[in-house]
């Protein structure tokens, strides 16, 4: 999910500028946040859930979107006020041992997500070309590396974010499918475990959806992106707007994906096990043109997220060990940062080369994300309350209260994830 570091783009690029340009900047930031919100985890999990549970888990997507809004906004503020990425402060404030737990959890989940995203890029290319995805894995990995190495931060973020907007075709196709809206509305507002599904499976996918919406790499990317783009306190309102408008609209895309699956795949009894099934409803409703759009969208979403997870692997490790990092430095000035990213890409490609199903990797990555969530989010909450870093911009009472309520949900999801996985046979 991207959209994160999309600060005050146009107005920064052109200096302090007229109202027109800053409206453009706001619009661009929000559009990038929407288009970049969806990644392979959201695509797959929403389609799987839609095809099996209809819209009866939409409440989890809503919950997850609220959660990511809260914590992305907090970590963006920490970065803008302190001028430092959240993870650097966590390392400094909590000490090496407490933050090592945080690092390990986040880093491995991130690596798993990176693997899933690169696999997603390869699967999207397979859809477009009919060439087996394994042949595309090296191409995808190389392309990700090249962009991370050469392309400016703002460009890589905005291009993938804006192209990702083509996923709106899911929403368009939902209308073309002319569904029974009442029925969908009832599913969404009166959630129940559908007949033939075990409660453990329902709750397993609830945790997976929650993990997909709140994947830890998002906040690391978001706060590091804020440093890349040199946010200051002045950019706070823009960043808040990007998050609070962009992410919910991105969440709306997630719901559209689930709804398309609920309308087409659920009645036909098709369970989603491949990317072609994720886009099947779009092809059925909108034909070739819609299919072309959705392939571009999936490619942009997964490629964008592959860039973000690759960068996040470099960010987390460099920030923990105090190496210089960032796209704003030339690679030779941040050598270890770039080396980490290359190694992580190679590991991800190596895992995919074993022939493991990228869709399965995705499903596991979102569940393990849920397990790691407390380790990511508790430290962020602590540093956002630290007046030494935040001055008068520490969290307010209401925000702390809301964040703590979410922390309880996050803890419950984390504790329940593995038992539910065992009980439900990983959602089988």
């Amino acid at each position: 999910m991207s959209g994160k570091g999309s600060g005050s783009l146009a107005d920064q690029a052109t200096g302090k500028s007229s109202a027109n340009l800053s409206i453009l900047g706001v619009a661009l930031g929000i559009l990038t946040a929407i288009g970049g919100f969806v990644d392979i985890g959201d695509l797959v999990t929403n389609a799987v859930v839609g095809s099996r549970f209809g819209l009866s888990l939409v409440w989890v997507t809503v919950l997850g979107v609220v959660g990511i809004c809260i914590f992305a906004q907090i970590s963006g503020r920490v970065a803008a006020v302190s001028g430092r990425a959240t993870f650097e402060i966590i390392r400094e404030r909590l000490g090496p041992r407490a933050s090592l737990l945080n690092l390990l959890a986040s880093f491995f989940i991130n690596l798993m997500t990176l693997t899933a995203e690169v696999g997603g890029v390869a699967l999207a290319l397979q859809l477009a070309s009919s060439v087996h995805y394994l042949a595309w894995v090296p191409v995808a990995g190389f392309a990700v590396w090249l962009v991370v190495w050469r392309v400016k931060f703002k460009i890589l973020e905005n291009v993938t974010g804006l192209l990702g907007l083509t996923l709106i075709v899911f929403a368009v196709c939902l209308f073309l499918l002319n569904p029974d809206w009442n029925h969908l509305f009832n599913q969404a507002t009166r959630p129940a475990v559908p007949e033939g599904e075990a409660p453990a499976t329902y709750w397993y996918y609830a945790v997976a959806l929650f993990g997909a919406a709140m994947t830890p790499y998002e906040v690391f990317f978001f706060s590091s992106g804020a440093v890349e783009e040199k946010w200051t306190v002045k950019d706070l309102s823009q960043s808040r707007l990007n998050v609070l408008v962009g992410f919910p609209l991105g969440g709306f895309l997630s719901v559209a994906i689930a709804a398309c699956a609920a309308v087409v795949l659920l009645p036909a009894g098709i369970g989603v096990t491949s990317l072609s099934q994720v886009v099947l409803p779009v092809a059925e409703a909108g034909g070739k043109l819609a299919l072309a759009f959705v392939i571009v969208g999936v490619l942009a979403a997964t490629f964008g997220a592959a860039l973000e997870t690759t960068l996040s692997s470099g960010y987390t490790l460099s920030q923990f060990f105090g190496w210089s990092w960032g796209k704003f430095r030339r690679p030779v000035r941040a050598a270890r940062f770039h080396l980490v990213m290359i190694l992580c890409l190679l590991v991800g490609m190596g895992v995919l080369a074993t022939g493991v199903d990228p869709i399965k990797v995705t499903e596991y990555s979102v569940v393990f994300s849920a397990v790691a969530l407390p380790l990511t989010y508790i430290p962020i909450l602590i540093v956002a309350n630290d007046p030494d870093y935040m001055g008068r911009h520490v969290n307010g009472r209401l925000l702390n209260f809301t964040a703590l309520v979410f922390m309880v949900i996050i803890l419950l999801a984390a504790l329940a994830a593995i038992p539910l996985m065992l009980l439900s046979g990983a959602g089988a």
Partner: protein
Amino acid sequence: MILSDLLTAKVFDDAGVRLGRVIDGRFALDGRPEAEASLAQARLVGLLVSPHSRGSYLGYERRDLNAPWPIAKLERWRHRGSFLVLWEDLHSIDDDGVHLRAGFTRHDIRLG
């Protein structure tokens, strides 16, 4: 010696009774005017000793940090009974840990 050698080391009083573990060091920046404080050499004032936990205090040793409330409460409970012992009150450091002088003082751990 580096501080990592001392962190989590056991702390004993002069009678050999175990008091807890070193969870942090407390430093002072002095000898320079405030504007140049970052140039000052950090001076080790003493060690923070916690009887129940070897984990970090996560910053909640500061008096003005009370939010978010449940986490602050939890950290203060985890580190209840912890104290600051001045460097002058150390008798020796060996493989067993840190040994304090007879008549050492337990200083308040809180900052600010």
